[in-house]
């Protein structure tokens, strides 16, 4: 294919991806009258913030934003910690049952949450977590994908480095802190951003675990708002922007970490 043709094809692909997102923005800033009028246009004839104002005055958007932020930050921190620790053990320590244990963790990757949702809900209620952030945080904090990724990265640390430190008399925890951790900064960034993104956008389990309006995260709030406002697309899209925009910005700014995490996972 010639270069012109290839550029054309790439532009077309980019257009297909961007168009729906662009349309979300247009609708979010169009007046209700204009949306009902319904002729084709590429930008609101009259740019308006009325949808944004209506959404913020009808729903506790700021609180929901705070819930999303708190939950996803804690999940990300827990997930980085647990994945890094366990990943180190699977990459560099020998212990009985390591293969079976690793296999079990990977097995949870193919397990849809719907398999365990009923009994997990009972467990969470039984533990007195229902009605708190922890009902969402704890069941989603241990990431099999994160563990897998951490092991892959940490296998790249030369064994000699670790054994040298051991010979100098350092304990395992000390080796982890002073040898492994300093070399793991890119890995930590990858794990952090990936679990932050996943938790920020998580839906199926929070839908079950968060029945209390005040604890809603943004995706659950978004669904709730759609239930209340129905086909008021201006309001729905304005709120969708609140959900989408922060992660799109984070994603674009820290893109190399996401890309590294995903492509690294593909290397066998």
């Amino acid at each position, binding site marked *: 294919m010639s270069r012109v043709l290839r550029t054309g094809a790439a532009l077309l692909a980019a257009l297909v991806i961007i168009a729906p997102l662009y349309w*979300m923005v247009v609708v979010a800033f169009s007046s209700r009258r204009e949306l009902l009028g319904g002729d084709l246009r590429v930008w609101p004839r009259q740019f308006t913030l009325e949808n944004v104002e209506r959404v913020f005055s009808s729903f506790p958007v700021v609180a929901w934003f705070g819930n999303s932020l708190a939950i996803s930050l804690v999940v990300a921190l827990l997930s980085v910690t647990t994945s890094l620790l366990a990943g180190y053990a699977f990459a560099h320590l020998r212990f009985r049952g390591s293969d079976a244990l690793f296999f079990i963790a990977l097995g949870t990757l193919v397990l849809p949450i719907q398999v365990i949702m009923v009994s997990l809900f009972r*467990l969470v209620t039984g533990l007195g977590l229902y009605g708190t952030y922890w009902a969402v945080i704890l069941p989603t904090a241990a990431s099999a994908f994160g563990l897998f990724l951490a092991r892959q990265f940490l296998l790249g640390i030369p064994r000699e480095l670790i054994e040298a430190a051991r010979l100098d008399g350092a304990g395992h925890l000390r080796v982890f802190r002073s040898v492994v951790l300093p070399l793991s900064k890119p890995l930590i960034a990858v794990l952090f951003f990936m679990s932050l993104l996943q938790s920020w956008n998580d839906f*199926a389990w929070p839908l079950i675990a968060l029945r209390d309006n005040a604890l809603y995260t943004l995706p659950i709030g978004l669904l709730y708002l759609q239930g209340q406002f129905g086909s008021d697309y201006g309001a729905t899209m304005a709120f*969708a922007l609140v959900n989408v925009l922060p992660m799109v910005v984070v994603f674009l700014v820290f893109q190399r970490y996401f890309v590294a995490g995903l492509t690294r996972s593909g290397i066998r």
Partner: protein
Amino acid sequence: MREVPRRPRGESLAAYGFIAPNYALLGVFVLVPLVGAFVVSLQRTDGFGDGEFVGAANYARLVTDPVFWRALATTAGFTVVVTAASMALGLATAVLLNSVLPARGLFRSVLILPMAVSGVATALIGVLVFDQNNGILDKLLGAVGLPEVNWQSEPVPAFATIVLVTIWWRTGFNMLIYLAGLQGIGPDLHEAARLDGANSWQRFRNVTVPLLGPSSYFLVVLNVIYSFQVFDIVFVLTGGGPQGATNVLVTYAYDTGFVTRDQGYAAAIGMVLLLLAVVFAVVQWRASRTRDLVE
């Protein structure tokens, strides 16, 4: 042989310490509920108070439940179509972006952007675009003289919407993996094939595609796992409708468990999901072992 003296006992203990936080969470919040789910699947219960033990009655009911079989077929169809289409498109765009092109980095950023968008927001944008009364897509179709489609009220178009929206959401990921694979292929093989007189399609078919084998294998596994668990898109975009046409196993399980609150039956549907997941895991594990032996 290693010169370093090993202290297996101490090393094992340390290892268990390192994996303890991860496996404590996994054990309490995945494995315990997994056993619990099996117990619940043998009960009739609405989730309030104690359930009544009914043995295998829920499983017997599955066999004669047309909604279940239809959801199973829809799940399978969805998985096949989405996996095939999003991998083909991912490969095509990866080849495109691996060639000489202005603003390649920008194109890549745009194509992977949907990965940052939540499933709920993606589905709601889908609702907006595919609205059959006032949606932009039908207006565009009308503007170029094509017939408008009843995306929401007819079964086949509704199924098409969940497929199209999911492809939009997922193709960037496939492209990234393929792009990484392509960058591992040196130019020499292509050069050799070119000297042998192979045209660009033949080179793509006989050099690029076989060398991307590991990437393709990895993507088939991930796409099947993902498509089989699709929830957000279906739940928000179509709610399983119209007339159950887009109902998949996971949405059926959710509705049964938390809307009609027939939780024993929902747990039984969950066990079928588990069985399918295990069968798939075993098949792919065997396939990968055979592949390793062949290579």
